């Protein structure tokens, strides 16, 4: 792996996004609007807003980065630039890591803005440290973008790439514990939820909100999220092919 090339890829992806201010505005603006809607819908002091609000701060970056990365990567494949890169002296992991870095950077902006809004104006209470919420939101974003990179290998068109969002992301959201606490799920659903990375990302945020970060399960959550990111990067690099049909 080369830091020079990873950095070059990350800078390039960021410059491409900078050329597209509307996408940036959507990435940052949409979660803000949704957060306001959530607070207005249930009310500032409702248990729903207070319990769901913090995990939502992690779900937004997870979803947006999954989508944006899989489409950007697919574009790289179809435009021929990936083929050109594959003839150059770089490692496949440099490309994947470069993408992950770039979208992590975007996620820092997104997570910071949405968190400031939620914790400040909207009155979301987080018993644990506030900075940890932002850190976990960024981890969610990296998880989303690395999964998006991996999944984009199986999409041939942008339509297919977009359809992978409901296919890969929605089941994880349904089973992560947001809608039904996991200890109330049917055993087979709970078994599946253990195998999904978002479950741990959700749990880490929920524990931060409840200030249970001394709990051993919080450490387990963090380790699983980091492991899933590493695994997704490795799988993403493995599914990039130098030789294609």
């Amino acid at each position: 792996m080369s830091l020079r090339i990873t950095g070059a890829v990350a800078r390039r992806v960021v410059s491409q996004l900078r050329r597209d201010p509307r996408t940036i505005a959507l990435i940052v603006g949409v979660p803000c609007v949704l957060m306001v809607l959530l607070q207005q819908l249930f009310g500032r002091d409702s248990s729903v807003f207070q319990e769901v609000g913090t995990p939502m701060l992690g779900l937004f970056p997870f979803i947006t980065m999954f989508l944006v990365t899989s489409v950007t990567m697919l574009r790289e494949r179809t435009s021929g630039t990936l083929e050109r890169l594959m003839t150059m002296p770089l490692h496949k992991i440099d490309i994947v890591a470069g993408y992950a870095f770039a979208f992590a950077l975007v996620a820092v902006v997104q997570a910071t803005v949405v968190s400031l809004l939620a914790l400040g104006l909207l009155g979301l209470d987080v018993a644990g440290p506030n900075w940890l919420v932002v850190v976990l939101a960024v981890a969610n974003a990296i998880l989303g973008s690395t999964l998006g990179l991996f999944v984009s290998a199986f999409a041939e068109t942008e339509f297919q790439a977009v359809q992978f969002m409901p296919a890969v992301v929605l089941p994880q959201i349904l089973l992560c514990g947001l809608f039904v606490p996991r200890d109330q799920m049917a055993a087979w659903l709970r078994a599946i939820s253990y195998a999904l990375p978002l479950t741990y990302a959700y749990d880490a945020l929920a524990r931060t909100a409840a200030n249970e970060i001394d709990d051993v399960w919080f450490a387990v959550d963090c380790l699983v999220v980091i492991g899933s990111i590493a695994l997704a990067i490795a799988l993403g690099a493995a599914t990039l092919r130098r030789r294609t049909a």
Partner: protein
Amino acid sequence: MSAAAAIRVTDLRVVRGGAVVLPDLSCEVAAGSVTGLLGPSGSGKSTLLRAIVGVQKVASGSVDVLGQPAGSADLRSRIGYMTQAPSVYGDLTVGENLVFFARVLDASEAAVDRVLAEVSLEEYRGRVVNRLSGGQRARVSLAAALLAEPDLLVLDEPTVGLDPVLRRDLWELFHGLAERGTTLLVSSHVMDEADRCDALLLLREGTLLAHATPAQLREQTGEDNLEDVFLRLIEEHA
């Protein structure tokens, strides 16, 4: 294999999507020359070039480039490849594209200035690629292939859609590079480019019709116009 062969293709067979694109191809490209790969659209030119740069899955046969099997990691810093469709980032400027590829290739900022001059795009450095014409985009793509001063340049239709003056300038550039020892393999589907090459590979339906210099081909077929030479060769093969 002659000592001066930069590329040696032996019994290459490529199947794409169930269709045999190259049934059984063998050829050589001399080092330090400008070799033209000519043939109509769909004749397998791009597939052959992709096999040479090591991005094409091959069914059987071998491709050796600069003494190593095509696709070897060591070759990646020695080959410049320009794909048929301009493979540059449309939403970045010309300069941003070249600076990115220069960083990946560990080439200098000076290399960016050099290649911009070589393809006559100095004034377009700050322009977003999507706003450029097709020919200008192709030149950005070519410039990226020139960045690392590779030993072998594989160019897939680099002069399509360019005005005659630019085309002449680019062919002069290619010959200048060859004089300094670079090997160039340039594909084209326009016959009038053939005369600018030191050697020609004529490809049709995945089969090599001829490998010779333009002068040899004229002598062999008795035709003066290279278009007619090609037609005559097809008739002989039929």
